[in-house]
C-alpha cells in the first residue's frame, strides 16, 4: 500500500513489514479480527484477507477481505518470536530489490526496438519470475 516514505519515521513501517503474516488485530471497540495482512499504510489502515471477525459479544463471521481504518486499531498481536528490527530490515531489503528489478525491467523494455506495439508484437503483462509482479505499461516510443 502507499505511504511508505511517510511511514519511514514511525512504527507504521513495522506494520508494513508484517505484510503476508497472519495477525490478530484488536479494535478499539474490543472486536477481534484475525487474518493475513495484505498491506498497511502510514496511517495504519489495514487490508486483511481470509479474515474472521469476532465482536465482543456475538458470533464469529468470515470474510475474504477486510479493510480496517487505522483509527480503529488498538492492538496488533504479534508472535513472540518476531524481532521488529529484523523484520523492518528484511522488508526494506525486499522492497529495494523489487524496485531495482522493476527499474531493470523498465530499462530493458525501453531498449527494445522501436514500436512495442508493432504488428505481431507479443506484449507481456506481469512477470512470471519476479515476486513483485511488475507490470510493463503498454506504450513505448511511438
Amino acid at each position: 500500500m502507499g505511504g511508505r516514505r511517510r511511514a519511514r519515521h514511525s512504527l507504521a513501517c513495522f506494520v508494513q513489514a508484517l505484510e503476508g503474516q497472519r495477525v490478530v488485530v484488536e479494535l478499539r471497540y474490543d472486536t477481534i479480527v484475525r487474518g493475513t495482512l495484505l498491506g498497511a499504510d502510514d496511517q495504519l489502515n489495514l487490508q486483511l484477507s481470509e479474515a474472521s471477525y469476532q465482536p465482543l459479544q456475538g458470533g464469529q463471521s468470515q470474510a475474504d477481505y477486510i479493510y480496517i481504518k487505522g483509527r480503529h486499531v488498538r492492538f496488533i498481536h504479534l508472535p513472540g518470536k518476531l524481532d521488529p528490527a529484523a523484520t523492518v530490515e528484511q522488508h526494506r531489503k525486499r522492497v529495494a530489490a523489487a524496485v531495482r528489478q522493476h527499474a531493470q525491467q523498465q530499462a530493458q523494455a525501453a531498449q527494445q526496438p522501436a514500436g512495442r506495439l508493432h504488428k505481431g508484437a507479443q506484449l507481456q503483462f506481469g512477470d512470471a519470475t519476479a515476486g513483485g509482479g511488475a507490470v510493463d505499461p503498454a506504450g513505448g516510443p511511438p
Partner: protein
Amino acid sequence: MAQPTNAAAASSTLHSTPSEPSATGDPALDFFSPLFNPARALAAAALHPPVPTARPLDNVYKCRSMLPSDHPDAWNDPHRAGKSKEAQEAAQREKSRLSYMHQQQERQQRKTNPLDQIAEHVRAGPLLLLKRCYQQRSRVRVDTRHARGVRGSMEGVLVAFDKHTNLVLREVEERYTVLLRVQRVKPPLPGGSGRERVRWVRQQEHRRRQLRQVFVRGDSVVLVAAVQAGTAVPEQQRAGGSAAAAPLQASVQVGRSSMA
C-alpha cells in the same frame, strides 16, 4: 563560435587583428565589428573565426564567463574559480572531505537499526523518557483507554516506540476492563397484570491476560511510566491522548505526574 556582439565586449582585451579580413570588408562578416551578423557568417562559405581553437559554447549566456571581471555582465563560475594551484587544491580537499562525510553518514545509517533511527528523531521533550526506556529495554507500564474512559493498564518490556507513542511491548501482563451489554430482567410488579421488564445495561467486567508481544497504537495510550522492579516511586510521564479521557481512578496518578 560567434563572439558576443556586445559593443563593450568587442572593444575589450579580446581584440586582436583579424587574421583573415572578410572578402569585401563587410562589417556584418567582421567578427570584431559591432554589426557582426552571426547568421550570415554561418551561411558564408570559407569564413573562419579569428581564433580557430576557441571553445564552442551553447549560447551567448554561457559566454559570460569569458568576459573580463570588470564587465557588468561578467560571471565567475564558482566551480571553476581560481585556476591557481592553491585554489584547486582547496577545492579538491573540500570535495574529498564532503564525500568522506557522506560516506560516514551512509555507513552509520547502514549500521543502525531502523528502530534506533526512529528513536533518534526524538531530541527533546517528554518523549526523551520514552527514548531512555527504549534504550535500556526497561519495563514500562502503559495505561490504555476506551473511547470514553480509562480501559486498563499493561506492563511490559519496551521494544520499540515512535513519536505517536505507538509501542511494541513484550512479555506483557494486562489488566483491563470491557463494557458488556447485559440484559436485566425485572420481575413484574406485584398486583395486577404486570409484565417482565427487560432492560439492556452496560456492565464493566474486569479481565486479565498475558501477551507475548503486542503493537499498541499511540492514540490508545494514556500514560507511560517506567517501572523498576523493587523501587517504590516510579517516574511518571504523561504521553499523548488528544481526546479527553474521563477522570476516573487514574486521575490521581495523572495529577501527581512530573513533566521531564
